[in-house]
C-alpha cells in the first residue's frame, strides 16, 4: 500500500542555493510525523513541495503514491494546508473566510457545519461574525485550523501550527491533532518546538541544513523522549 506522503532523495534549490539535499521519508496513514529543525533548515520548503509550489531539483515527491509533478491538482485536493503565517482575509468574518476557501476547494458547508468546526477549535461564538482584522494571532490560527478540518482531506500539512497560541490552546490543538490522526488522517507538521513535536508526533525527523540527520519514534505507547531529541537538536545545531 502506498504511503500518503513520501519523498525520495528530494533535493531542492532556491535562487541557486541548496535548500534540501536528498531527503527521504514516508508518512504512513494515521501517522503524525513532525519535521523538526532550526531556522532555514528547509522544513517549510519540504511542505511546499508536496503542494507543488516548489519544484524539486532532484528526487521525487509523492502523494498517495502519485508523483506531485505529474498531477499537482490531485495532490492539492488530497491535502489541507495550514501555512505558518495564518493567511486568511482580514476584511472578512470567520464565516466568510471559510465559506470562500471551501467554495474554492469545491466543497460547501452550512452554518451548522461551520459552527461545529469552530467549536472543535474553540473559537468563541461572538468572534465568528467579526472580521479577522480584529482577531488575535491565536484566533486567526484557530480559524485556519477550522478550515483545514472542514476540507476533510486525508492529509494535513501543518507549518508551525502552534506558533502564537497560548499554552492552553496548544494543548487543545495537540489533542485535536491526535484525534484527527486516530480518525485516519495523515499529518505532517514542521516545527522548531521540540517539546510540542515530542508531545504530539508518532515520529520526529530532525532536519538540519536541508539534510534529514536523525529520526526518533515513540515506542511501546510511550511519548518520544524530549530530552533525547532536544540534545540531538542542540548538538546538530551547534555542529
Amino acid at each position, binding site marked *: 500500500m502506498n504511503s500518503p506522503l513520501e519523498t525520495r532523495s528530494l533535493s531542492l534549490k532556491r535562487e541557486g542555493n541548496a535548500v534540501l539535499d536528498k531527503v527521504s521519508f514516508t508518512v504512513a496513514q494515521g501517522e503524525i510525523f513532525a519535521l523538526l529543525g532550526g531556522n532555514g533548515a528547509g522544513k517549510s520548503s519540504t511542505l*511546499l513541495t508536496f*503542494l507543488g*509550489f*516548489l519544484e524539486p531539483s532532484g528526487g521525487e515527491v509523492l502523494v498517495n503514491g502519485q508523483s506531485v509533478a505529474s498531477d499537482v*491538482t490531485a495532490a*492539492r*485536493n488530497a*491535502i*489541507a*494546508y495550514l*501555512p505558518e*503565517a*495564518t*493567511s*486568511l*482575509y*482580514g*476584511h*472578512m468574518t470567520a464565516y*466568510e473566510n471559510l465559506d*470562500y*476557501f*471551501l*467554495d*474554492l*476547494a*469545491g466543497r460547501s458547508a452550512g452554518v451548522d457545519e461551520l459552527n461545529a468546526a469552530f467549536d472543535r477549535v474553540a473559537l468563541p461564538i461572538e468572534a465568528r461574525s467579526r472580521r479577522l482584522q480584529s482577531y488575535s494571532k491565536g484566533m486567526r490560527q484557530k480559524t485556519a485550523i477550522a478550515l483545514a478540518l472542514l*476540507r476533510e482531506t486525508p492529509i494535513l500539512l501543518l507549518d508551525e501550527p502552534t506558533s502564537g497560541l497560548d499554552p492552553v490552546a496548544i494543548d487543545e490543538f495537540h489533542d485535536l491533532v491526535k484525534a484527527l490522526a486516530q480518525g485516519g488522517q495523515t499529518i505532517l507538521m514542521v516545527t522548531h518546538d521540540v517539546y510540542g513535536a515530542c508531545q504530539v508526533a508518532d515520529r520526529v525527523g530532525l532536519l538540519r541544513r536541508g539534510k534529514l540527520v536523525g529520526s526518533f519514534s515513540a515506542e511501546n505507547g510511550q511519548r518520544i523522549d524530549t530530552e533525547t531529541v532536544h540534545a540531538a537538536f542542540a548538538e546538530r545545531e551547534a555542529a
Partner: protein
Amino acid sequence: MSPVTRIAREEWRLWMRSKVVVAAALIVATLLAATTLLTINRIAAEQSERLEQQIAAEKTFFAQPDRHPHRMVHYGHYAFRPPPPLAMFEPGVDAVTGQSIFLEGHRQNTAMFADTKAAADLGGFAALTPASLYQLLLPLLLIVLGHALFLRERESGTLAVMLAQGQSGTKLAAGKALALLTVITIFMIPLVAVAVYSTSLGESGLAAFSLVGGYFVYLCVWGAIVLAASIILKQRAVSLGVLIFAWLFAALVVPRFAINASSAMVDAPGKIESDLVMLAEQRKLGDGHNAADPAFQRLQAEVLEQYEVETIEELPINWRGVVASYSEAELTELLNGYAEKRMNLEAAQSRIFDFFGLASPTIAISSASRTLSGTDLATHHRFLRESETLRFDFVQSLNEVHAEELDYAIDMNRNAGPEASRRARVNAEAWQVLDEFRFVPDSAGERTSRAMMSMGTLTFWLLLAVAFVFISARRVRL
C-alpha cells in the same frame, strides 16, 4: 457559483469594504458625471447656437437691400460647424481649430472661436472632457484598484491558501480579470448613456456604439496590463511604481513625443505663416478691383475677341464683373493650392501621430475617439473645403450678377454722386444666389472605416496584454 465568479465576487467584497477604494471610486464617478453633464450642456448649447447663427447669417445676407454686387462680396457670410452629437463626449479638435469662418471675396479666412464661450474658460478647464477622463483618469483608477490584485494575495499568504484549495493560477487570474472587467463595465455606463442620448440627437448607432466598444477595449487593455504587472512583479510598491510609470509614459510622454516627432518629420506651416508666403504670389495675379491692371491685358484681349468687339465699353457684359470673376478664380486656385498643401501636411502629421498608437494605447483610443465622434482633423478639413466651396460659389455668383446685371458705364460712374451710386445697385433678389450651408459629420460607415487603423491597434494591444496575462498566470509562483 464557479470559482472564477467567486474570486471576482470576493474581490468586490474587498473593494466595497475598503474605504480608500470606495472614496476613490466615488470621486471619479462624481468627476465623470459632472464633466459629462457639463460637456453635454455646453455642446448642446453650442450645437443649437451655431445652427441658429448659421440660419441668422443666411437671413441677414438675404435681407440686405439693393446694393452694388461687389459690396455684397465684401459684406460676406458666415459658415458654422455645429458640433456633432458625440462631441458632447469627445470635443476633439474643436478646442484648437475654431468652429466658424467668415467668408468673403478674395480671402480664405482662418476659422474662429466662439469668444463668449472662450472667455469663460481662460484657465483651460474645458479641456477636462469626458473623453479625456476616460483616456487618462480611468486607467489610473484601474491601477489604484488592481495593482495589488495578485500581490496582495502573495504578500498576505492567501495566494498559497487559494492554490492549496486546488485552484490554478490561470483560474485565479481569470477571477481577478472578471472583477476588473465588471469595474470596466460599470465605468462604461456613462458612456453608454451618452451614446444612447447621441442617437436620440440623430447620431448613428454604429458610430456611437463603435465608440463605446473602442473605449471598452481600451480600458480592458489597461486592466490586462494592471493584472499582468500584479502577477509578475513581487512587491506592491514596485507594481504601483511600474504601472504609474507606464501610465505616464503612455498617456503623457509618448503623446508629447509623438507630437514633436510628427512636427519634426513633416514641417507644416500654420495658416498665418502660409498666408504671408502666399501674399507675394498673390500680388502677381493682379488686383481684381482694378480692371485696368496690366495683369488682365491678356484676358481683355481674349474677351474682346470672343465677343468680336474692339473696346470693353462695347462688351455686352460688365468688364469689371468679368475681371472680378477671373481674378477670384485665379486667386482661389492659388489659395486652394496652399490650403490643400497645408491640409495634406497636417494630415501626414496626423498619420504619423496615429502610428505612435503602437507605442501607446492612449494615442490609439484618442485617435479612434475623435474619428468616430466626427471631431477629428479630417472632419475639420472637410469643413474648410466645404466652406471654401460655399465662399467661392457665392462670390462668383455675385461676380456673375456684377457682370450680367450691372451696366459697365453705370458701374464706372458709380462714384459721381448719390444718384449715380443708387443707379449702380442691383435688386436684392440677386442675393438669393447664396446656397444654404449645413455642415454634417461624415457617415458612420466613413468614420468607422477611417477609425479602423486605430481600432486595429487597440485590438493588437488587447491581444498582447491578454496573452501576457495568460502566460504569466500559468507560471504563478508563491
